[in-house]
C-alpha cells in the first residue's frame, strides 16, 4: 500500500473531515472564519510538501499511484490554488445561505481528487480521481440554492459531466478489454501489439472525450460558459484553475506515459482540436457582456493554447504547459477574487459593474487590469512568457511538419482577437464613469494578501522566469518523452 507516500492527500482529506466536525461545535456567527483556518492549514500542507522530494518515481497501491516530480509540481499547484479559493470563499460566504462549512469541506475533497489525479498511473485511479472532482463540483456549482442561475449551472454540469464520465468509463472498459490491464506502464510496454486494434483505439478516443470535457476543449466545451456564469465565483475560479489543470495533468500522463505511440499518430487530431479551441474561445468571447461568461470563453481559449504544448509532443511543449499553468493560476485567481469582491452588491456580473473601478478601489482595479493584460499575453507579465514558450515549442516542430505553422497561425489570430475583449475590460475599469451611489468596496485583510500574492506571482513569473522554467523543466522530464 505504501501509505506514507500519500501523506499529502491523507492530510487534505483529514482536514476536510476536521472542518466538517468543527462545524458542529462552531457558533453560527463564527462559521465563516472556518475558511481561514482551512486556508491556513492548506498553506501548511503546501509548506510541508517542500520537505518531500521525488527524484525517482516511487509507487503506491500496486503501481496505481506514482510520486514523481510532475506529480509533486501539480500537487503544489493545486494546494496553492486552494488557499486562494478558500480565502475567496470566505469573502463570498455571506452570499451562501447555509452550509458554508460544507462548502469549505467540499473544496478540500475536490482538492484531494485533484491531487490523486496528479499521481494517477492507472486508468482506475484516473476515473476515481475524476469522479471525486466532478461529483464534488456538482454540489459546488449549485451551492447558491435559491439562485436559479446557480441551480441551472449545477444541473447542466451534472448532465454533461455524467455523460462525459460515462464516455470515459466506457472507454476505460474497452481499453481494459483489449489490453488486459489498466496500468499505464504495462499498457505502454504492450502497446506495440495492441495499438493497431480498432477497439483499443476507440477506447482511448472515448477516454480523450472525457478528458476533453474536463479541460473544456472544443467540441466538449459547451458546458463551460453557462456553468462558469451561473456558479458561485469561488467555484468558477476553482473550476477554471484546479479542474482544468487536473484535466491537463491526466492528459499528459495518459498521452505520454500510457500510449505514446498512439499519441504520435493522433498528432493531427490534437492539432485540429487545439486550433479550433483557440479560435472558438476567442471569437465567442468577443460579444460577451457578462464578465464571468467572458472569462469562461477565455478559459476555453487558454485550454487551446495549452493544447499547443501537447501537440508539440516534446519536453519543450510539456514544460511550456506547466509554466503556462503557473502563470494562469495567479492570473485567473486574481480576476475571480476581484469579481468576487466587486459583484457583492450587483446582480448579473455585467462588465458595467467594474466600470470606473479605479475610482472605487485602486487595488482591485490594478489587479484586474494586470490579470487581463497577462491573459492577453502582453509583457512583462506571466502570460507573455508562457505563450512565448508554447509558440516556441510548436514552431520547433514546424521544420518537420509544416502543419505546425498553420497551427501557429491559428494561435496568433486568436491572440490578436483576444486583445479586443481583454483590453475592453481594462477600458471599462479605467475609462468608464462609475455608476453613482455605489456602496464602498471593503476588502478584508486575507483577501488583500491574496491579491498582493497574485500580483506578485504574475509579475515575478513574467520578469524573472528563470527559476520557474527550471522547476517546470524538471517536472516535465518525469514524463518519458
Amino acid at each position, binding site marked *: 500500500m505504501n501509505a506514507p507516500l500519500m501523506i499529502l492527500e491523507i492530510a487534505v482529506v483529514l482536514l476536510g473531515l476536521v472542518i466538517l466536525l468543527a462545524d458542529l461545535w462552531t457558533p453560527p456567527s463564527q462559521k465563516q472564519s472556518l475558511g481561514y483556518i482551512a486556508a491556513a492549514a492548506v498553506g501548511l500542507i503546501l509548506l510541508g510538501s517542500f520537505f518531500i522530494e521525488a527524484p525517482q518515481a516511487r509507487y503506491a497501491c500496486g503501481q496505481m499511484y506514482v510520486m514523481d516530480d510532475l506529480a509533486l509540481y501539480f500537487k503544489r499547484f493545486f494546494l496553492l490554488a486552494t488557499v486562494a479559493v478558500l480565502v475567496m470563499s470566505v469573502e463570498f460566504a455571506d452570499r451562501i445561505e447555509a452550509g458554508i462549512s460544507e462548502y469549505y469541506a467540499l473544496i478540500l475533497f475536490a482538492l484531494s481528487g485533484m491531487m490523486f489525479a496528479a499521481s494517477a498511473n492507472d486508468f482506475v485511479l484516473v476515473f476515481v480521481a475524476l469522479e471525486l472532482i466532478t461529483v464534488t463540483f456538482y454540489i459546488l456549482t449549485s451551492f447558491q440554492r435559491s439562485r436559479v442561475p446557480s441551480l441551472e449551472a449545477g444541473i447542466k454540469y451534472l448532465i454533461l459531466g455524467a455523460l462525459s464520465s460515462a464516455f470515459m468509463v466506457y472507454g476505460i472498459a474497452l481499453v481494459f478489454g483489449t489490453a488486459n490491464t489498466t496500468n499505464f506502464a504495462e499498457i505502454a510496454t504492450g502497446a506495440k501489439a495492441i495499438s493497431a486494434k480498432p477497439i483499443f483505439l476507440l477506447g482511448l478516443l472515448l477516454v480523450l472525450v472525457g478528458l476533453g470535457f474536463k479541460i473544456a476543449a472544443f467540441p466538449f466545451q459547451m458546458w463551460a460558459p453557462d456553468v462558469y456564469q451561473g456558479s458561485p465565483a469561488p467555484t468558477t475560479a476553482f473550476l477554471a484553475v484546479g479542474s482544468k489543470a487536473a484535466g491537463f495533468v491526466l492528459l499528459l500522463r495518459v498521452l505520454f506515459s500510457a500510449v505514446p505511440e498512439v499519441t504520435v499518430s493522433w498528432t493531427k487530431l490534437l492539432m485540429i482540436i487545439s486550433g479550433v479551441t483557440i479560435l472558438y474561445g476567442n471569437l465567442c468571447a468577443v460579444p460577451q457582456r457578462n464578465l464571468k461568461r467572458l472569462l469562461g470563453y477565455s478559459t476555453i481559449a487558454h485550454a487551446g493554447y495549452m493544447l499547443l504544448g501537447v501537440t508539440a509532443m516534446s519536453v519543450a511543449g510539456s514544460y511550456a504547459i506547466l509554466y503556462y499553468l503557473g502563470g494562469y493560476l495567479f492570473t485567473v485567481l486574481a480576476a475571480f477574487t476581484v469579481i468576487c469582491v466587486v459583484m457583492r452588491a450587483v446582480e448579473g456580473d455585467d462588465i458595467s459593474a467594474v466600470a470606473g473601478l479605479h475610482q472605487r478601489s485602486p487595488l482591485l482595479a490594478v489587479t484586474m487590469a494586470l490579470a487581463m493584460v497577462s491573459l492577453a499575453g502582453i509583457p512583462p507579465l506571466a502570460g507573455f512568457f508562457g505563450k*512565448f514558450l508554447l509558440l516556441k515549442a510548436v*514552431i520547433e516542430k514546424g521544420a518537420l511538419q509544416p502543419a505546425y505553422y498553420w497551427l501557429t497561425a491559428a494561435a*496568433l489570430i486568436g491572440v490578436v482577437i483576444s486583445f479586443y475583449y481583454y483590453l475592453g475590460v481594462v477600458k471599462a475599469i479605467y475609462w468608464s464613469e462609475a455608476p453613482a451611489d455605489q456602496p464602498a468596496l471593503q476588502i478584508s485583510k486575507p483577501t488583500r494578501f491574496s491579491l498582493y500574492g497574485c500580483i506578485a506571482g504574475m509579475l515575478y513569473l513574467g520578469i524573472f522566469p528563470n527559476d520557474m522554467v527550471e522547476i517546470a523543466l524538471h517536472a516535465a522530464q518525469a514524463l518519458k518523452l
Partner: protein
Amino acid sequence: MSTLTYILGWPLVAATLVAFIPRNYRFTIRVIALAATGLSMLLAIKLFSQFEVGSAELQFVQKVSWVDALGISFHVGVDGLNIGLILMGAIVAFAATAVSWEIKEREKEFYILLLIMAGGILGAFASFDLFFFFFFHELALIPTFIMIGVWGKGADKNYATFQITIYLTAGALIALVGLIALYLQSGANTFDIIELTRHVRANPLSVNQQHFIFPLLLFGFGILVSLWPFHTWAPLGYGAAPTATAMLHAGVLKKFGLYGLIRIALPLMPEGARSWLHVIAFLCLGNILYCGLVAIRQKDLNLLIGNSSVAHMGFVFLGIASLNLIGLTGAVMVMVAHGFLAALTFGLSGYLYQQTKTLRIDEMGGLLGRLPFIGAALIMAMMAGCGLPGFANFVGEMMVFFAAWKTFPLVTILAVWGALIIGSVYMLRAIRNILHGPLPTTWEGLKDASNPWRKLPFALLLASLLVFGFAPRLLTDKIQPSAEKILKMAIGASAPQAKAIKTARTD
C-alpha cells in the same frame, strides 16, 4: 551597470514611481516624467560623445543571464547602427514628454504609458538579445494602442485604433514567429544576437530555411514600418493619435522594424535577402510614389504628414535594397534624421491643433503672422522633409540615391522624382496654404509658443536636424564600421565597397 541600462531604465523606474503618486499631484507627475526622460536624454548625449569612433565592436555592454535553459540574457550594448537611434530616441522621448502639457485629463495614466513607451523603445534599440529585442518592442507597442484609443482625437478615432492595433499586433507576431524560427533553426541555442551571428557565420542556415524565415521577418517588420501595401494604418493612426504618441511612434518606434531588418535579417540570412531585394526595391517605390501622391491630395495636415512619413520610409528600404556600404549607412542616417523630423512635424501639428481645434488645411492661412516661432519651425520642418541641404534628411537621402543607382537605376530615377518633385509639391503647398496668405478672422486670437519651455522641444529637434545636416560625419563615421560588418556577412566580400566610399570621400 552600463550607462545604457540607465538610459532605458530611468523612464521605466519613473513609470513605476508615478503609479504610486495620487492623481491630483499633477505637477509632480509631470516633473517626474520630464526629469526621467531628460536624464535619459543627457545620458544618451554623453554616450554619443563617449562612443569610440572607428570600432565595430560593441561598447557600453552589459550582460546579465536571465533564463539559462533557453539562453536568454539581458544584453545591451551600442555599436554604430544603434548609437544614433538611441540618441534620437532619447531626445524625441524628452520632446514628446515636454509637449504633453496639452493632456488635461487622466494625466497620471498618460504619463505612465508614455514613460513605459519611452523605456520600451530605448530598450528595443539597445538590446542584443532577440528575446528582449522583441519584449521591449511589445512593451512600447501596447501603450501606443491604449493612448490612441483613449486620448486620441478626431471622428475616426475608434476605427483608427482598431486598425492600428490589428495591423501592428499581426506584424509583431509574424516577426516573432520569424525570430523564434531563426533561434530554433540556427541550432545555436542562444537568443544572444552576437553569439547567434557568430554561430551562423560558422554554420549558415540552409537556403530553404532562409527562404522561409526571411519573408516572415521582411513582412512582419515591414508591416511595423508601414511598407507599402501594408501602410494604411499609419496616416489614420497618426492622425488620431495624441501628439506625444504620434511623435514617439512615427519618430522612433517605427524604426524598430527597419533596424531589425538590418541587424538581424540581412546578416543572418544573406541568401534569403538576396532573393527578396528586388521585391523590396519595387515595394519601396509604392511608398515613395504612391504615398507621396496620396499626400498631395490630403486636406488634413496630420494625414498629409502621416502619408509623407510613410513615403520617407521608402528611402530607407531603398537603402537596404541597394545592399552596399553607402546605401546601408544612408539608410541608418535617414532613420535617425526622419525620427527627428517626424517628431518635429507631429509636435508642431499637435500645437496647431491645440490652438485651432482643426487641422483642415483649407481653413487655415496666414498663420505665420500670428505664430512666428511655430510657423518658422514648421517651414523648416517642411523644407527638411523635401530634402533641403543643411538638414540631416538631405544627407541620408543623397547617400541612398548614390548607392541605389548601380543596382536599381530605374527605381532610383523614380525615387528621386518622388523625393524632389512630389515631396516639394505637397510640402510647399502646405506651407503656402497654412502659413502664408491672408489670416482668417477666426484665428486672430492664436498664441505663439512664447514660453521657453514650450519652445524647447521644438528647438531641440530642429537643432538636432541641423547638427547632423551640417556635420553628418558625426554619425556616418560611427555607422560605417558596423555597416561594413553587416555587409561582410550579407554579401561576403566587402573590400571593393569599402574602397569605393573612401575614394568618394577623398574626392
